[in-house]
């Protein structure tokens, strides 16, 4: 089992992810530089696109990173069923690469938001959320200027119908309210997956909520869900009869 964390120029949560996976999960992890065109991601089981300001967010957030040499391999990896997790700017890159539907636009409020946020777990039937409970309220920090999720009505209905909305912004009691929505996201969407459920993008930073000293441990189960999934896959590979 091995995690890979992609580094774009301007990534700044790459080491947070690396640290969280290596030191807290104690799982194997390597950094992957965005220029590695020939990289085929062989040997990796889960690719993380971390937060940051890739390419200074020029043109649109994630737009230029999406055409980084490494992204060809990431798209290939994802379409073959590999697990891909995009956090914050990584989520923006995934929508630009059309691996996830919709787009992230400027926050409805005036500014960059950086704070603790409560989100509700909406679907646990994914490799990324299986250890959570449906309806569970998590405290996870957010830090973004462009986190307002937008898609046309049809896409939003499809996301609903296929249970692709994994996290919604909520208040402390788990209510999905207008007031609890920090950035104007449609349907309070904080995180989604693709229809095949192997690609997930979310604006909150679970890697920053994994230690006591960071005021919340609620991000841990997301990464632990992945580890359990990968261990099960591995077992199946070695004992195909089970």
């Amino acid at each position: 089992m091995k995690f890979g964390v992609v580094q774009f120029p301007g990534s700044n949560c790459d080491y947070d992810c690396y640290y969280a996976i290596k030191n807290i999960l104690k799982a194997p992890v390597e950094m992957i530089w965005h220029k590695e065109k020939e990289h085929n991601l062989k040997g990796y089981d889960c690719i993380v696109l971390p937060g940051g300001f890739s390419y200074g967010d020029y043109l649109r957030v994630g737009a230029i990173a999406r055409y980084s040499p490494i992204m060809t391999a990431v798209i290939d990896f994802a379409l073959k069923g590999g697990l891909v997790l995009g956090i914050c700017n990584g989520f923006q890159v995934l929508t630009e690469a059309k691996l996830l539907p919709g787009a992230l636009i400027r926050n409805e409020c005036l500014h960059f938001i950086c704070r603790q946020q409560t989100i509700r777990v909406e679907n646990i039937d994914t490799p990324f959320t299986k250890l959570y409970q449906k309806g569970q309220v998590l405290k996870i920090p957010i830090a973004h200027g462009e986190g307002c999720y937008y898609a046309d009505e049809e896409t939003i209905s499809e996301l609903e119908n296929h249970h692709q909305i994994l996290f919604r912004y909520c208040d402390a009691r788990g209510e999905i309210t207008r007031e609890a929505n920090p950035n104007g996201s449609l349907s309070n969407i904080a995180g989604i997956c693709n229809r095949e459920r192997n690609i997930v993008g979310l604006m909150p930073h679970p890697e920053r909520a994994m230690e006591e000293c960071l005021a919340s441990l609620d991000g841990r189960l997301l990464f632990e869900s992945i580890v359990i999934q990968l261990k099960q896959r591995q077992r199946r590979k070695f004992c195909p009869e089970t």
Partner: protein
Amino acid sequence: MWLVKIKVRLKKGVLDAQGKTTQQALLALGFHQVKEGRIGKLIELKLDGGSREEVEKEVRDMSQKLLANPVIEDFDYEIEAREE
């Protein structure tokens, strides 16, 4: 040499927080006539060679691929021939 001006605008219905904030700032400055403000991008490229038709095809292609995101944006363009 061709000069291409590509205008990228947020689609109707997509919240334009920057445009709205700018409108409000103009109102606060006393420009009370401003009923709406929207902010888009003006991308100007210089392109080498090719016929107008070829350039037009390229411009559509690069706009769809990179310069505009069809989920949230529309684009149009003007193409002008330029002396070197």
